[in-house]
């Protein structure tokens, strides 16, 4: 078992394209860390640098006690599962599983024993004589996992391993992966663009955007206390509602609503409220309330998503272009919001709804930098 440390790791591709910038991150021994971010954020590049498939432009990567910058992939004691599985199509499942061991001149009996163990563990024993072309997607995925497991590596690298499976199988494999990790306890780095996968699987998640690490922490922490506007918009589905407000004398004005926060600095702020932080209340509710004009209602069975708009000012906020895109859409002087309601609540499209704000769920961001005000 080993820890993996990124120390100031930068990857520059020819043409001065920066894929990963100054990444510093420690993955503890036996930890399950998720690298998550939108496509092109550098997460796969970071993983491939650990594997040794990409050269490191700057900084160091340490596996265990050894800096591996110049160590070839085969000597890093890592195993990787590729997004497209990359099974050797001309070999049977058995030979696929044993390929790595045979290349390492493991005695034949040991190879057979390891292959047997792993194929039993993953339920592949019936398929050993088949070739990848004769397997279903889920079975191929399992073989790819098995090929990595069989070598008992120090570090397990997974590059979007579930993204080619259908939704049902993905959920099933997700829990299987988690169980597997609990059982073998190998340091695992898992790359995904799917934030649901990230939240459900990881012990810690690291959010990347444009090659830069945005936040690292346990999934719930990242969800509850996003470090910046990007994380607020990326983690959570539907994303956090971000509204423009103005703070004066410990009060924040968002449209017609006033929120009390004695410590807030004066000036423009971005107010972030999770969809579940807004709940419908009656006319007699005393606290701050948004008048939501309901547009679309999406019943999802276990919950109802309500998309609507509220009275909200369109302030001229300086922020990075991508953050701008995350901000609630402004239509004239109305801002779009999403509410997550229990299944029995079914407001009609076109109706009006009074939504109270759970004040403790409100997060504030600096519109100039996008950073959280008073992060935890």
């Amino acid at each position, binding site marked *: 078992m080993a820890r993996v440390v990124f120390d100031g790791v930068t990857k520059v591709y020819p043409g001065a394209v920066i894929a990963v910038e100054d990444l510093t991150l420690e993955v503890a021994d036996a930890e399950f860390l998720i690298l998550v971010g939108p496509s092109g954020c550098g997460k796969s590049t970071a993983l491939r640098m650990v594997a040794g498939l990409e050269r490191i432009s700057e900084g160091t990567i340490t596996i265990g006690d050894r800096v591996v910058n110049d160590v070839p992939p085969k000597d890093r004691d890592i195993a990787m599962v*590729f997004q497209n599985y990359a099974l*050797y*199509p001309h070999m049977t499942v058995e030979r696929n599983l044993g390929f790595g061991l045979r290349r*390492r001149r493991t005695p034949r009996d040991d190879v057979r024993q390891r292959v047997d163990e792993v194929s039993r563990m993953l339920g592949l024993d019936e398929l050993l004589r088949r070739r990848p072309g004769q397997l279903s*997607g889920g079975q191929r995925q399992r073989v790819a996992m098995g*090929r990595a497991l069989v070598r008992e590596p120090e570090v397990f690298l997974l590059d979007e391993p579930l993204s080619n*499976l*259908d939704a049902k199988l993905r959920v099933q494999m997700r829990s299987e992966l988690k169980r597997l990790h609990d059982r073998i306890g190998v340091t695992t780095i898992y790359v995904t663009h799917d934030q649901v996968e990230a939240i459900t699987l990881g012990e810690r998640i690291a959010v990347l955007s444009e090659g830069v690490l945005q936040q690292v922490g346990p999934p719930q922490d990242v969800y509850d206390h996003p470090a910046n506007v990007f994380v607020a918009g990326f983690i959570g589905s539907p994303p956090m509602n971000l509204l423009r407000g103005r703070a004066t004398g410990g009060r924040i004005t968002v449209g017609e609503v006033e929120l009390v926060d004695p410590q807030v600095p004066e000036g423009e702020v971005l107010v972030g409220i999770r969809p579940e932080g807004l709940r419908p209340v009656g006319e007699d509710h005393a606290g701050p309330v948004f008048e939501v004009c309901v547009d679309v209602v999406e019943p999802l069975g276990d919950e109802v998503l309500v998309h609507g708009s509220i009275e909200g000012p369109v302030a001229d906020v300086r922020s990075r272009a991508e953050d701008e895109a995350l901000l609630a859409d402004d239509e004239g002087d109305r801002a779009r919001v999403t509410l997550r309601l229990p299944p029995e609540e079914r407001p009609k499209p076109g109706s009006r709804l009074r939504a109270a704000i759970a004040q403790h769920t409100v997060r504030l961001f600096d519109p100039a930098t996008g950073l959280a005000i008073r992060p935890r």
Partner: protein
Amino acid sequence: MSAVTEAPVVLARPDPRSLPGETGMVERPRRRFMPFDPWHLFLAPLAVVMLLPLMWMVVTSLETQAQTFHFPPILWPGTLRFENFANVIRESEFGTWFWNTTVVTVTIVLSNLVLCTLAAYAFARIRFLGRGVIYFVLLATLMVPLQVVLIPTFLIVKDLGLLDRLGALIVPHLASVFGIFMLTQFFRTLPIELEEAARIDGASRLSILVRIVVPLSLPALATLAVIQFMWTWNEFLWPLVTILTNQSAFTLQLGLATFQGAHQSQWHFVAAANIMSMVPILVLFLLAQRYFVRGIATQGLKG
């Protein structure tokens, strides 16, 4: 070139999949007058025209010498003289020619498979200084006609002391630019992840080439083998130039030419020997054709 790149001429025929509304009128299924596609009326005679020379050769190989000069040609001789084949083998050095050609062809095909694979893999996957330039220069040599390099190559072979020996036929063709080009293009289509997975699994470059790339490239390698085999087996000009006097180094094609004299040609022997010399190519083609199908390289990917 334009004739090659232009789309083939297709007779106007309503597409059965097109929707009725598309042409502005309702199309009814056409009544069929014939139990076969009308195209066959054009293609079947064409096939006969293509097969005619082959048929004529077979017929000629079974005739007497007198019959071969008859005009109009006799397309169905009364008696079939199969002894022409035996006579060719008995009265000429056919066995030697066949053996020489086999040695030359098999050596060239095998060395092409090995050398072109190595070179092509380097061009396809290894980054090295000048890769693009060298590749381009190599490709450029494909544009140089044989006549231009004939004399320089002859001089090199002469300096190597190979004239009049089988080596003269083998050495200049041990590797071919065409083979390198074809395999490079094929290797580039193989999923790189397979090789990356093998690297992580601990395979060396050579091991990746032998255990992953080559098994996945059998269709391309089989194609290259057949093409190279045909070229070498049928090569006439180069042996004619380099094998000057040594009859024991004659290839089949040189040998066949000896049946045609300045004053008299033994067409029945030419035809019989030609048919026998075609057999290996036909056999190879039948053996290799099961590889001429889509490769399996992408079957280990995705779901």
